Every structure is written in C-alpha cells, then in structure tokens.
C-alpha cells in the first residue's frame, strides 16, 4: 500500500484498460463513416407515402439536380457561355442530363432530341394514345387526316410536311405535343433565360445519387472549373439545388464542429486555469471529456453504422457536463486531502455524481427509442458519453491525481461569491414564484403558437441561399412539384397499368382547366397490355387501303400518296413491344428512370413495390389543390396523391409529437429515480421544484421572445433537467450535511460556468439544430443553479 491507498497493480490495470479502450475507440473513429444529410431526421419506419417521399429526397431526380444561373455581360455573351458550359458539362461524363433550352445545336450536343424524335416516330403506333380500332375506320381516318391538315399552311406546317405521307393521322405531332411541358423557361438567343433578371439558365442532373456527397462535390468542383474562362469575361456563376446544399451543409457542419471544439476547449481551459492555476490539473480535467466524446462516437458508430454531423456537434456540448465530473473530483478530493483524498470523494462526492449520471441516462434513454435515427443517435451518444466520462472520473482520475488539484488560484474568491449567492438567493423566492406563475400563464395562453418549428428549421441552409434557390426555381418553372400522383404495383407493368388508369382521370382535370398538364412515364413507356391493345387495333393493309380510299374521297390529300402510311402500319403490326431498354440513348431514358422506380421494401421479407410517378402542372394562375385531384382518382386503390409539403409537415408533426412524449417520459423517469434515491416526499419536492421552475422560465422566456420552438429545443429542455438535477441534489446534500466550505461551493459555481459557457458557444452556432440546443441549455442551466440556491432550505 502506498500513500494513495491504491495498489500498484490496480493502478496499472485501471490505466492500461482505459488506454487500450481509448486506442481502440480512436481506431474505430478514424475508420468511421460520417454523414451530414437530412436522412437522419427522416423516420426509420415510415408509412408507404413517406417511403416514396424519402426515396425521392435521397435519390430522386430532384436530389441530383443543380440549378445554374449565369449573370453579368450582355444577353449574347451569356447565351454563348450557356452553350459552352452545357457542352463542357456533357463532355465531363459526370452528368446524366444537361439542359439549357438549346435545341438547334448540332451533333450529339442537342441533348439527344434528334434521336428522341426518330425513336418516337418509329414507335408511334405503340405509343400514341389515339390509336384505337375506331381511328382506322373510314370515319376515324377522315377526322385524323383533317386534324393533321389543319396544321398545314401554318408556321408549324413545314416540319409536318416531311412525314405527311407516312403519318397522315398525325401520331408524331400528338406525341410531341404531349411531351412539351405546360410551363417552361423563357427562351432568348436560343437558350433558357430568366423572365425577371438578366440571367441565362441551365439544369444539370448528376449521374451519381444525391446521397453520394463526395461525387456531388466532385461534380460541383467540375462545374466551377468549367466556368472559369467565363469568369474572366465578367460573368458570374450562380448555383443552387439539393446537392449543393448537401455538400455545403456537410462542409459547414465539419467546420463548425471543429470551431466549437476549439472554442469550447479554449473557454473551458481559461476557466479551469482560473480555478486551478495548474497545467496538470487542466490536462487531467479534460480526460473525462475526451473519454466521453470517444465513447459517444464509438457507441453511435457501432449501433448505427455512421455518425451524423449534428450528433458530433451536439457531442461537443457534452464537454459542459463531463467537465463537471472532473471539477467536482479535483476540488473535492483536494478538500479531503487530510481525510483520505480520493477516498473521501468516493464516499461523499461520487454518490451524488453517480445519481446525477443515472438521472441523465434516464432522461436520454427516452431518445434512444425515438423512431428518428437523428434523435436516437443523440440519445445513444449522450448516454455512452456520460458513462464514459463518469467511469473515467471514477477509475482513472484517482490514479492520476489521488489528492485532487493542488493550488487554489481564484477559487477562494469564487467560493465567496457563491456563498453570497447562497445566502441572498432565498430572499428572491417569492419574486421567482411570481415570475414562474407569469410564465406558466403565458405558456397556457399561447400553447398553440409555441411549437412553430418545421422540418426546414433543421436545415442549415442560410436565408440568402434559400432566396436564390427560390428565384432560380421560378425562372426554370421548376417549382418543387408540390403534388405527385403515385401509382404502385408489384412489378413495373402493374405500376404502369395503375399509372395509365390515373392518367385517364387526370386528362379529365386537364380538360376542365384545373390542370395545365401532367407528366407520366406511360407517355413513352406504356404498359404491355396497352401496347398490345394498340397493336391489335391496327388493320391489315387491305382493310386499311379500303378505309383510306373512302376517307380521302373528295379531300385534298389523295389516298394514292399514302402508300408509306399503309406500309408503316403493316410494319407496326409485327413490331416488338417497347421496353425500358429501348429508350437507352434517347433523352427520354432519364425521365423514365426518374418516374418509374423500385421503392424500398416495407420490412424484412416484404417485396419492394414499384412506383410510377405522375407530376402535375398547375393551370396558369391557379394554386394546385390536393382535394380535386384525390376526388378524381377515387376508386383507384393503387393510386395515391402525395402532397409533399403536407407530408413533410406531418412528418415533422409526428417527430415533434414523439419527442414531446419521450421528453415527458424522460422527465418522469428522472423524478422516479430521484424519489427512489431520496425516499422522502419533501426532499423530492425540494429537488424537483427548481428544475420545474427552470424549465418553465426558460420556455416562457424563449416563447415570449418570439423564438419558434422545435424539437431540438425540447431536447435542450431534457438536458436542462439532467444537468440541473446535479445542482438540486447538491443543495439537498448541503441540507443533509448542514454546511459547505468555500471550495465545494466554488466547484459548483465553476461547473455551472463551464456548462453555461459551452452551451452559450453552441447557441452562437450557425447550424440551427445546434443553436437551438444552446439557446435552451445555456440560460436553463444557469437558472437551474440559481433556482436551486433560491429554493434551498439549508442554512449555509
């Protein structure tokens, strides 16, 4: 036995175990996978509609699309730049499709429309919705030819004349007309331009999925590089879109997490230096923090496979609580130097720390069971982190500094301030009561308007970037398709059949003028059943010739000219059906890929369904409403209307609702645990009172200040209860022992200052998720301490 009362063997064991655990953890961390997209904040067990939404958000066409604007210079310069930039992007091979409105370009740079037109022409009798048996009767042919002739002798007629003899019923113009979008960007100088500003426009969708941020970053770097020559001409590049936001958010989260860690370390270091004036004490005080962070990251990595950036940022707040353990230890072991050093801490300080730890774990355990991976990660991280920090404090600190921290620095002064506070605060009890009642009343009055946050409030995209995005979207007429119609089936054919049934109903809405139009993959990829029906309606050459002779009698287009038409129909009668592979190489392939896809399975063993999407275009000057669309689609069980905005809102609503329950459960668990430990009603009440008041005043203050409260504020409140319970227990302990020395009071004040400082830093973060937690915990923790003193019954 040596002076510390620890055997050499035990010291070696404790240190060795801790060191190897840390090394192992660091290795895992270095090999870990880190994400920064919104996926962690989407539900893990979504319903069918949400699953489509999530698939779309993660890998849909929108998630891969960059909106590009070119400003500066004159219109001709911008148009030329748009052409060269589009060419450079296409040549890079990183983009599946680059559109800039130019359809007159030569060669392969026409975006594939030349090939597309030929393809449509070749398959017109399988694709055209007008192909029915009636169309090939004498009466039907007469009507179809008349309609085609009505386009001749107009500016549009020139293009038609080339195919008049082989397509007199006008199937090709019909197909092309259906593919022209109802709303499209303005064209000037042959390229897309903005209606509002002097700006040329492009739309580029990457080959890589939206979630592959490394590939997305590479594509964006290539875009910036390709634009460099035009920058010299005085042109400016504007870029927006989900892939850009994702890449920026990742970079921002990375940078902020680093900044927070550095700033937090510096502030904490400063405070600790003031308190201990010892480098050694400073280093030792950081050990539980480091252990906690490593344990948290490793636990999340092991249970989720990857760590979200927000979780990491949140982790730095753990510094605030974990460093408290070290402060209590270093000061309290020092106090007890005459009476056994760390042993006295073990007897008097550790039980309080342990109880505080259990209450924190109870609080966060509720989050672990959250249906949202993002929240569950925060829960796992906090629990593992606090456990790691506590274990390190319990087993490693006594080995390294058995007698606590030497030197007293400014602790005496801190202690004196604390003592003044402890004496003075109880006098404020009645004013605090009044304030609390005021806050409670205010909250009760406005309880509907308090929780105003939405999913967008979790997004770290700054306002200016959101404005630019909205402006480019309006220019490109690419307003987020708010309403989608989803047709579902067990296989692609079933999904296409369901989409065709939906298209028939939607066509009715278009005729009524409620819709300007809609896009459907069945326009270029009809179901096999439909193709078979069309093929079967094509008559034999003899029958067709007879009908044609009757139909054209007396008309300006003689049947004798229409031999190529009879041949084309005869050929189409033996034509193989169109399959998705036939579309390769045309500009239609990306469209069909985006609109017909396999969803993710609902659960283990369940087959993944196929989805066909129909995008709706609102009639000019009309808002698109889900109700008439849903009414029109009634009776089609395989077809649903997806209101994206409403789905996202309900997603967040569910998220918030779940978090509220979890927070409540967590709070109840904390109270039960305290009750079990204290085994006294009055003591439990005395401990809970300051916590309840701290939550009430924090919430009231933020709500009265007009801060829209969201889920992360709620998580912050949970943290206030977890941290605050330590203070309340401390005062409960004071009452039991009846007295406290300056050093112990100083440790309390110091612990609180570090917590408030670290969360105060986080409140300044530009990442909304982090600043929300900081905004709650910094004032909440301070209030928890002051109120614990205020409501304390002990004489000090």
């Amino acid at each position: 036995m040596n002076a510390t009362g620890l055997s050499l063997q035990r010291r070696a064991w404790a240190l060795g175990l801790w060191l190897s655990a840390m090394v192992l953890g660091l290795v895992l961390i270095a090999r870990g996978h880190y994400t920064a997209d919104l996926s962690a904040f989407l539900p893990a067990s979504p319903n069918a509609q949400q699953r489509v939404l999530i698939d779309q958000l993660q890998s849909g066409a929108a998630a891969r699309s960059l909106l590009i604007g070119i400003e500066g210079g004159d219109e001709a310069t911008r148009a030329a730049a748009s052409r060269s930039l589009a060419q450079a992007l296409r040549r890079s091979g990183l983009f599946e499709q680059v559109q800039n409105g130019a359809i007159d370009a030569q060669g392969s740079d026409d975006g594939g429309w030349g090939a597309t037109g030929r393809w449509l022409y070749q398959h017109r009798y399988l694709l055209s919705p007008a192909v029915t048996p009636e169309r090939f009767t004498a009466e039907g042919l007469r009507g179809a030819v008349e309609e085609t002739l009505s386009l001749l002798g107009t500016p549009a007629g020139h293009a038609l004349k080339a195919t008049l003899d082989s397509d007199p019923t006008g199937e090709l113009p019909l197909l092309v007309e259906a593919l022209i979008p109802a709303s499209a960007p303005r064209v000037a100088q042959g390229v897309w331009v903005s209606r509002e500003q002097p700006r040329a426009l492009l739309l580029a969708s990457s080959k890589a999925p939206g979630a592959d941020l490394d590939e997305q970053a590479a594509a964006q770097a290539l875009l910036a590089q390709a634009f460099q020559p035009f920058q010299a001409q005085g042109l400016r590049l504007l870029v927006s879109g989900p892939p850009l936001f994702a890449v920026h958010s990742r970079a921002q989260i990375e940078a902020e997490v680093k900044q927070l860690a550095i700033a937090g370390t510096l502030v904490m270091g400063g405070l600790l230096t003031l308190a201990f004036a010892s480098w050694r004490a400073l280093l030792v005080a950081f050990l539980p923090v480091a252990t906690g962070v490593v344990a948290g990251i490793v636990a999340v990595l092991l249970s989720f496979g990857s760590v979200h950036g927000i979780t990491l940022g949140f982790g730095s707040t753990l510094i605030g609580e974990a460093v408290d353990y070290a402060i209590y230890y270093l000061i309290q072991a020092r106090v007890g130097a005459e009476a056994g050093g760390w042993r006295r801490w073990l007897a008097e300080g550790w039980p309080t720390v342990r109880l505080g730890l259990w209450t924190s774990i109870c609080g966060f355990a509720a989050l672990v069971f959250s249906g949202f991976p993002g929240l569950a990660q925060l829960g796992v991280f906090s629990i593992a982190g606090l456990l790691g920090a506590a274990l390190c404090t319990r087993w490693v600190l006594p080995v390294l500094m058995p007698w606590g921290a030497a030197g007293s620095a400014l602790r005496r002064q801190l202690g004196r301030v604390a003592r003044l506070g402890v004496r003075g605060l109880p006098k404020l009890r009645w004013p605090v009561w009044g304030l609390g009642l005021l806050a409670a009343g205010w909250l009760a009055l406005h309880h509907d308007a308090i929780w105003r946050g939405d999913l967008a409030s979790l997004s770290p995209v700054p306002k200016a970037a959101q404005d630019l995005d909205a402006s480019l979207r309006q220019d490109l007429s690419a307003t987020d398709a708010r309403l989608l119609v989803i047709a579902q089936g067990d296989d692609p054919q079933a999904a296409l059949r369901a989409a065709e049934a939906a298209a028939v109903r939607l066509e009715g809405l278009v005729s009524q003028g409620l819709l300007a139009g809609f896009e459907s993959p069945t326009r270029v990829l009809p179901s096999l059943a439909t193709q078979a029906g069309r093929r079967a309606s094509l008559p034999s050459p003899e029958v067709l010739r007879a009908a044609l002779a009757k139909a054209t009698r007396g008309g300006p287009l003689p049947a004798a000219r229409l031999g190529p038409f009879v041949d084309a129909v005869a050929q189409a009668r033996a034509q193989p059906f169109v399959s998705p592979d036939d579309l390769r190489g045309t500009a239609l392939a990306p469209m069909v890929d985006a609109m017909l896809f396999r969803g993710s399975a609902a659960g283990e063993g369940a087959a993944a369904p196929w989805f066909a999407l129909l995008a709706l275009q609102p009639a000019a000057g009309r808002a698109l409403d889900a109700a008439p669309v849903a009414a029109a689609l009634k009776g089609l069980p395989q077809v649903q209307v997806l209101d994206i905005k409403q789905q996202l809102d309900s997603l967040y609503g569910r998220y918030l609702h779940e978090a509220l329950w979890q927070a409540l459960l967590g709070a109840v668990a904390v109270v039960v645990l305290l009750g079990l430990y204290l085994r006294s009603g009055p003591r439990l009440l005395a401990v809970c009172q300051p916590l309840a008041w701290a939550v009430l005043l924090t919430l009231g203050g933020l709500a009265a200040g007009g801060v829209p409260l969201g889920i992360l504020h709620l998580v912050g409140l949970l943290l206030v209860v977890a941290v605050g319970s330590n203070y309340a227990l401390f005062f409960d302990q004071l009452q039991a022992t009846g007295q406290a020395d300056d050093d112990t009071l100083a440790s309390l004040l110091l612990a609180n200052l570090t917590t408030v400082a670290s969360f105060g830093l986080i409140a300044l973060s530009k990442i909304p998720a982090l600043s929300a937690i900081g905004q709650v915990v910094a004032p909440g923790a301070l209030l928890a301490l002051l109120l614990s003193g205020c409501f304390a019954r002990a004489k000090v």
Partner: protein
Amino acid sequence: MLRELVARRTWLWLAGCLFAGPTWAFAMPDLMALLSQQRSGEARFTEQRYVANLDAPLKSSGTLSFEAPDRFTRRTLLPRPETMAVEGNTLTLSRGGRSRQFTLDAAPEMVAIVEAVRGTLTGNAQSLQRHFRPQLSGRAEQWSLLLVPLDARLAHQVREIRLDGQRGELRGVTMEMADGDRSVMQIEPEPAKP
C-alpha cells in the same frame, strides 16, 4: 399688284403642298393611334391555305375575338372545331377533345407570330418592331402593313406577314411561309355590341 399677289399665293400654296407633303402621309404612329382606340373586338374569318402538293386549298372559318391588352382567341368552327386562345404568356390549344397549355415565351418564334396579330390589334408599335421590320403603305382608309421577321429561326419558317385594314379595323392577314405555302385570312368585323 393683284397678279403679283395671286402668283405669290400660288407659289406659297405649291410650296406648302411640297413641303407639308410628308406630314400628310399615313405613317406608323397614325396607324397605331387608330388601332389602339379599339379596346376589344369580335369578327368572323374565312381562311384559305395554299399548300404545295395538296390537290386543293384548305378552307376554314370561324370567329376571332380580342380584348386589350393581351387576350386573343381564334375559334375555328369549320371544318373541325378548334380553339387557340392567348392570354398574357399562356397559349391554350383545344382540339380533338384535348386541351393543352403552353408557355409562349418558351418558344420565341411563337411569341413573334402571336405579336404580329396581337400587337397590330392593340396598336403596340414597340412589340411589332421588336420582332419585325414593319413597312406601312396605303392610307388610313385602306392600309397594308408588311412585317418581315427579324429572328433567323422565325424567318426560316415565315417569310413575311401582311396585315390589311381600314382605319382601326383589321380586315385581312396573309402569311407567306418560307417553303412557298401561303395562308390568306379575310376578316369581317362584327358590329360592336351595345
């Protein structure tokens, strides 16, 4: 003395005729002023289109209506019902039981053709000059406005458009296509509604 006076007057009169001449000629601003007085109108039309390789000209008829500043509708009744309605930047085509909307300025040549008629009906000289080289001939009672496209892509389709009219009324539109086809439209205004 008297003779001198008469001679002087004659001289002045002649000079007046000579020099004041151009201001009496019928010019674009005059036509535009006449046209812009008409805020709305209804008319019947008959159209004949001469298309190469067809045995006979294509005939159609129907009604036209316009309402300043930006609404214009062509309703074909024969041989098949068909409607083309322009309002602001939106073009709505209804034919064969289908109705489709398009954005006009997504296709600049479509804008130009619409403006040839809409710009003339509303007396919008700026709009006409943006898309065409206008040449006016005739007088107020019987004028003829020739529009030659400025845009190369439109010129590839349409060689020229000729609008004929009497005072503030449009009476005919002739469109010469680049490939030699031609459409001739005769317009018979309906008396203004009470």
